């Protein structure tokens, strides 16, 4: 842990790779990108290995003051660790998935590697302004990826993306300035323990909310997401769904909740209301989509709503559940976009009706697609269940109404995902070109199999993922304790019937007659 600044190294490797990619021709750029992301993934494994569960809250800290209180300050807790692992795990897969890109390959690879730098930076930054730079700049490569390598409507999609994000981030920056002025520090751990005046908390919370709600995205500021996904190339969609959407959730858990606990409690009702609408509304919209990517994009909005209710449940199950939903959704929706990409590369259409009967000519593909579909609908034994179950168990302790509405997501989710699967994989082979598509090749198998393994691992033994975060969630839970809302259940004490009645029948030990 000493000496080797592993986090900086993880930022440096893809950065160097990005520069190299700009200088060489296409084939070499692909190799460099694959090597750089793989090295970063290996570094990620080292990071996870060296992370001490139950050790200091902030580990691998680096601090190099630059000027005027602004510092190159990195460090991670368990929550950041897990999100970094997710990012570095998905990156090599994204590079592999970019085989179909033929235009300006070097720049494309550079954009992806730069994005990896910025994503890791977001989760590792411990300085408020450093975080802001990473957080905002991280979107620039994404704009480029959509705007240059995207589909026919890419300009409109990236414009929408830009407009929403800009609005939120301006407000957040203003709030950050005020906070630094008030607390006299840009150090995130210090700010997390700082008690801002309650009146100010509300405004600060709303300013951060504007930014995070868009990133999440929450209803009704979600409409940029389907367009961005539809236009983005496959790998762009994977990163967008897999990691970029998690920045909103990370923002809530790192800033809104610990820094403004009282305001978070006060505005929980707003979050619940928007999330409840999102679950029902976007699930129903997903049901009527004809475009595969749009369908999965809308399902992302519904899943992210489970994250927000879990976070604002103010208890351990809600928080841990939300984190697991984020990790799981990163894997599962990423994998689903890869599944779309696999057949898009063959037929060049996302129109669901153009496929059908793929189980016949692509049985391996159908198996993976089924697994990820089931993980998406939250089948126990897959990662999707653990997170959803914990989040909803958490929110039930606050409100049975919110739980009831959000749990309808399990019905609607099954509806739209199985309807999608049926139209793609079941039925007769009604389109000759779709029927002629070959099954997964080795490259595609290598992309999907690790995600499948991770999805099952997280579903069967989520302890591996929960353990590093446990202490941090507990600390956050303690921080939130004062503001915790009272639940609507309030069960009273029981009035068991008198003992004689049981005794008369010869009471069995387990309360049986």
């Amino acid at each position, binding site marked *: 842990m000493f000496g080797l600044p592993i986090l900086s190294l993880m930022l440096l490797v893809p950065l160097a790779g990005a520069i190299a990619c700009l200088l060489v021709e296409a084939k070499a750029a692909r190799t460099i990108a694959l090597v750089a992301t793989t090295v970063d993934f290996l570094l990620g494994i080292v990071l996870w290995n060296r992370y001490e569960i139950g050790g200091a809250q902030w580990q691998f800290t680096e601090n190099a003051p630059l*000027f*005027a209180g*602004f510092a190159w300050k990195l460090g991670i807790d368990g929550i950041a660790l897990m999100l970094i692992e997710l990012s570095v795990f998905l990156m090599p897969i994204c590079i592999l998935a970019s085989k179909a890109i033929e235009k300006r390959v070097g720049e494309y690879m550079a954009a992806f590697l730069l994005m990896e730098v910025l994503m890791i930076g977001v989760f590792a930054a411990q300085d408020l*302004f450093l975080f802001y730079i990473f957080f905002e*700049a991280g979107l*620039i490569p994404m*704009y480029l990826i959509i705007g240059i390598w995207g589909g026919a409507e890419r*300009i409109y999609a990236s414009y929408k993306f*830009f*407009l929403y994000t800009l609005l939120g981030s*301006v407000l957040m*920056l203003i709030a*950050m300035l005020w906070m630094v002025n008030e607390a006299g520090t840009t150090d995130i751990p210090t700010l997390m323990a700082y008690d801002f005046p309650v009146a100010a908390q509300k405004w600060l919370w709303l300013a951060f909310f504007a930014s995070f709600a868009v990133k999440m995205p929450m209803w009704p500021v979600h*409409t940029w997401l389907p367009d961005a996904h539809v236009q983005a190339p496959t790998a762009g969609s994977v990163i967008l769904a897999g990691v970029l959407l998690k920045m909103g959730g990370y923002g809530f858990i790192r800033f809104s909740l610990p820094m403004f606990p009282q305001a978070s409690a006060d505005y929980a009702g707003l979050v619940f209301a928007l999330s409840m609408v999102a679950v029902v*509304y976007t699930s*129903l*919209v997903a049901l*009527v989509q004809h475009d595969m990517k749009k369908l999965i994009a809308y399902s992302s909005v519904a899943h992210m709503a489970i994250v927000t209710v879990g976070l604002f449940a103010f208890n*351990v199950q809600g928080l841990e559940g939300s984190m697991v939903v984020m990790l799981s959704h990163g894997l599962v929706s990423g994998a689903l976009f890869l599944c779309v990409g696999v057949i898009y590369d063959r037929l060049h259409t996302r129109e669901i009706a153009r496929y059908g*009967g793929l189980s016949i000519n692509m*049985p391996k593909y159908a198996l993976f697609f089924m697994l990820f579909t089931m993980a998406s609908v939250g*089948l*126990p034994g897959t990662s999707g*269940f653990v997170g959803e*179950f*914990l989040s*909803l*168990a958490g929110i*039930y*302790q606050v409100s*049975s109404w919110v739980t*009831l509405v959000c*749990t309808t997501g*399990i*019905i609607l989710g*099954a*509806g739209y995902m*199985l*309807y999608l699967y049926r139209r793609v*994989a*079941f039925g007769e082979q009604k389109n000759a070109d779709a029927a002629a598509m070959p099954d997964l090749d080795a490259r595609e198998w290598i992309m999907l199999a690790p995600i499948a393994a991770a999805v099952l691992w997280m579903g*069967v033994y*989520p*302890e591996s993922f*929960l353990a590093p975060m446990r202490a941090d969630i507990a600390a956050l839970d303690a921080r939130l304790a004062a503001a915790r809302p009272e639940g609507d*259940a309030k*069960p*009273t*004490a*029981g*009035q*068991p019937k008198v003992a004689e009645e049981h005794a008369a*029948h*010869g009471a*069995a*030990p*387990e*309360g*049986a*007659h």
Partner: protein
Amino acid sequence: MDPILFIVFLPLLAAAIAGLGNRALGNVAAKSVTTLALFAACLLSWPIFIGSVSGHAEPHVVQVLHWVQSGSLNFDWALRVDTLTAVMLVVVTTVSALVHLYSWGYMAEDPDQPRFFAYLSLFTFAMLMLVTADNLVQMFFGWEGVGLASYLLIGFWFRKPSASAAAIKAFVVNRVGDLGFMLGIFGTFLVFNTVSIPEILVRAPGMAGSTIGFLGYRLDTMTVLCVLLFIGAMGKSAQLGLHTWLPDAMEGPTPVSALIHAATMVTAGVFMVCRLSPMFQTSETAMNVVTYVGAATLFFAATIGTTQWDIKRVIAYSTCSQLGYMFVAAGVGAPGAAMFHLFTHAFFKALLFLGAGSVIHAMHHEQDMRFYGGLRKHIPLTFWAMMAGTLAITGVGIVDLFGFAGFYSKDSILEAAYGAHSQSGSVGFWAGIAAALLTSFYSWRLVFLTFYGKPRWDQSEHVQHAVHDDHHGHGRKHHDDGTAGYHPHESPLNMLIPLGVLSLGAVAAGYVFAHDFISEGAGHFWRGSVAFSEELIHHMHGVPLWVKWAPFAVMVTGFLIACYGYLINTAFPGKLAAALGPVYRFVYNKWYFDELYDRLFVRPAFWLGDRFWKLGDIGLIDRFGPNGAAWAVARGSSFAQKVQTGYLYSYALVMLLGLTAAITWVMVH
């Protein structure tokens, strides 16, 4: 290692080998691996059950792996073995092993056999996880796992649109029940701070009479929890309101119907209520709900069963109805009787389904009984197996002497319902008597239409195809005996052996095990694994003589009506149906549940989705959001071009400016 580990995980291993090996592995290897695994599991299960019968087995729990630990919410992968589990173990592994064997013959011509056998074994694994669950979440795992397997198997012939539609319907309707189950688990955790079943059962009586806030109301705590969990049971066990998926599930291959949609998965709801019976007994309201739902279902499903023509649908509605009986028993406080009926029903209903499969096999995939007739002489072994099943389900037997399996278990349910001396018990009793008449009628109707009378095969398209293929090039002969020249063949041995074994169960299971399950001394058998009331057993045995003979009387009545309508005066049923007109159509169309749900839920969901998308997202949010902004900019100046192409730079610029301002401010400060 504990044998339970092998019982549960051998099927999973076999499923993985057969499923992943698939065509590379080959048909015979895949079928052998899965079938051997299941027979091994079956052979290991019976000693556990016999141990319970002889009273030697001690209940125990085998820890496998930690699952989730989140604050105080902890649950593990663990296998619980007690009497209730033992009963389910033998039911599940025996029927599953026999169904595996049967499928060798039934699926012999299918090109996708490894996949089929992998699904069957996967199902068995999930079902075993369900019945060995020590906590509610693992039960839910098994619950959803069997749902997945059921979805995959119903849609096994995925090229048929009706099969994939039925598969989705089964999964989604079950999810409606699961919504209740999940809320029930959340509520249970909230109240008891644990999801461990034994702990909940110990502490449940202490919470009797408390109240809880739920959806803005203050309600009795245990009632809320039990009813929520019961909604899950209603979905899985196809009870009235959530039953619509079960008849459609008959789209799956017939061995699947026998295993999943008759003997095992659909009984999971009954198993759950029995497993949690000490909890359910803390709320009289919840118990009444269980009884009334069961009573309504057993009657409603039986009425539909009398009118259907598809042989599998008749048996499917019959299953639905018999599950209603089990819930009545559980609801009046006789989980022992419910489990006993579950046990005997597994044998005779699997037998009826496999027998029907054998008939369908002989009749070249024809399922419509209007095109059967006179098959007794052509497939005599199948006929006798079906007779054993019919004698068992209709409950043929003489009090205190001997009866077929259903005689003991169904009569014990009716006696318990009567002996409960409650209003709900009376409703259950009278509904049960009425349905027993209908059961006898539709069961014998099935037998008479299929095996008696003259052949009516020539009207069947399936048979015509078969004949056409056979006689191709031979020149057509004219047949006026209704056979169209078709010769049904008895099924092969690998299908007949399972029929034989299950026939044995249908004949003897009641007589042999009645004492263990439902006598005064059955408390020693159950060992606290279900709530056992010796008092109710006394009441059951003390019911008036007419109560004991009433099922017999209605059974004979139903038989005579079927005899008259389908043997003696075959024009009578048609005339009766015409005379009843709207009533007949109402019943024949399954009380219009599918149409109702389609109008109420399915179409509105698509309609709303479309409106939300086109009016909400596009018409409102985008129009006044980003598009509106673009419009304003375009209109305001010739800036638009710049924004569209230079947005990236302007954005980067805004950010940089902002940061510079921030840093400057901090420096100055």
